[in-house]
């Protein structure tokens, strides 16, 4: 039976441009990153992921985003990070954070990396977004670090928290 083990967690105390989990042990089958996040952006912004600190143009993502009145499908290729989901942003209701799960199977096996993500953002007022994305990182090196950034270059706001789990026997 698959088991979740908390590898590490952190809560942002002071706004910061990126959050990195480094020296990830190679002792699990899959990785799961649970995020509760809010960006300093004044408008819609997307949480992105970089693997092993790489900013090479080896990422691609296919995303579907809905807000209750319209659905938007988009794809990025040859990008410097993988697109995850729409984040809660600074001008929406105070203390509202988006929630997301990023799943990375077989993170030590020598193959290109698949990244599966689902995230939601409910602003406590009139807007909400659901995002699902499938991403690819074209590199076969085992994953030892994960970095979360915002595509608009804005900070992670204080109170954002991230929990990295390892899955055994997936």
């Amino acid at each position, binding site marked *: 039976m698959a088991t979740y083990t908390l590898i590490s967690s952190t809560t942002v105390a002071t706004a910061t*441009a990126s959050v990195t989990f480094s020296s990830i*042990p190679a002792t699990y089958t899959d990785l799961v990153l649970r995020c509760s996040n809010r960006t300093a952006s004044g408008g819609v912004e997307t949480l992105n992921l970089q693997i092993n600190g790489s900013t090479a143009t080896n990422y691609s993502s296919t995303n579907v985003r809905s807000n209750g009145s319209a659905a938007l499908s988009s794809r990025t290729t040859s990008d410097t990070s993988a697109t995850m989901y729409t984040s809660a942003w600074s001008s929406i209701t105070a203390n509202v954070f988006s929630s997301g799960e990023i799943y990375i199977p077989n993170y030590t096996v020598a193959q290109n990396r698949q990244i599966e993500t689902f995230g939601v953002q409910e602003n406590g007022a009139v807007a909400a977004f659901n995002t699902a994305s499938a991403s690819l990182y074209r590199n076969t090196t085992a994953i030892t670090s994960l970095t979360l950034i915002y595509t608009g*270059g804005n900070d992670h706001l204080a109170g954002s928290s991230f929990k990295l789990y390892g899955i055994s026997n997936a």
Partner: protein
Amino acid sequence: MATKPTRLEVNCMTGEESIIELTNAEIAQMEADAAAFATQRAAEEAAAEAKAELKASAKAKLIAGTPLTSEEADVLVL
């Protein structure tokens, strides 16, 4: 002097958390990514706006019983 942006790093082996100033190269990368994102978002918004206009035009023509353009038909059936 303005302070540089920082990054938070958590070492999963030791549990140690570090707040590190970004290098000039990292700042340049972040600014390039932000510019690319702004361009992409503008393109997405323009495409969404154009599609909405086509839908509105197609609806009006359907109600009036006048012929649709190929692009207007596409937004209804694709």
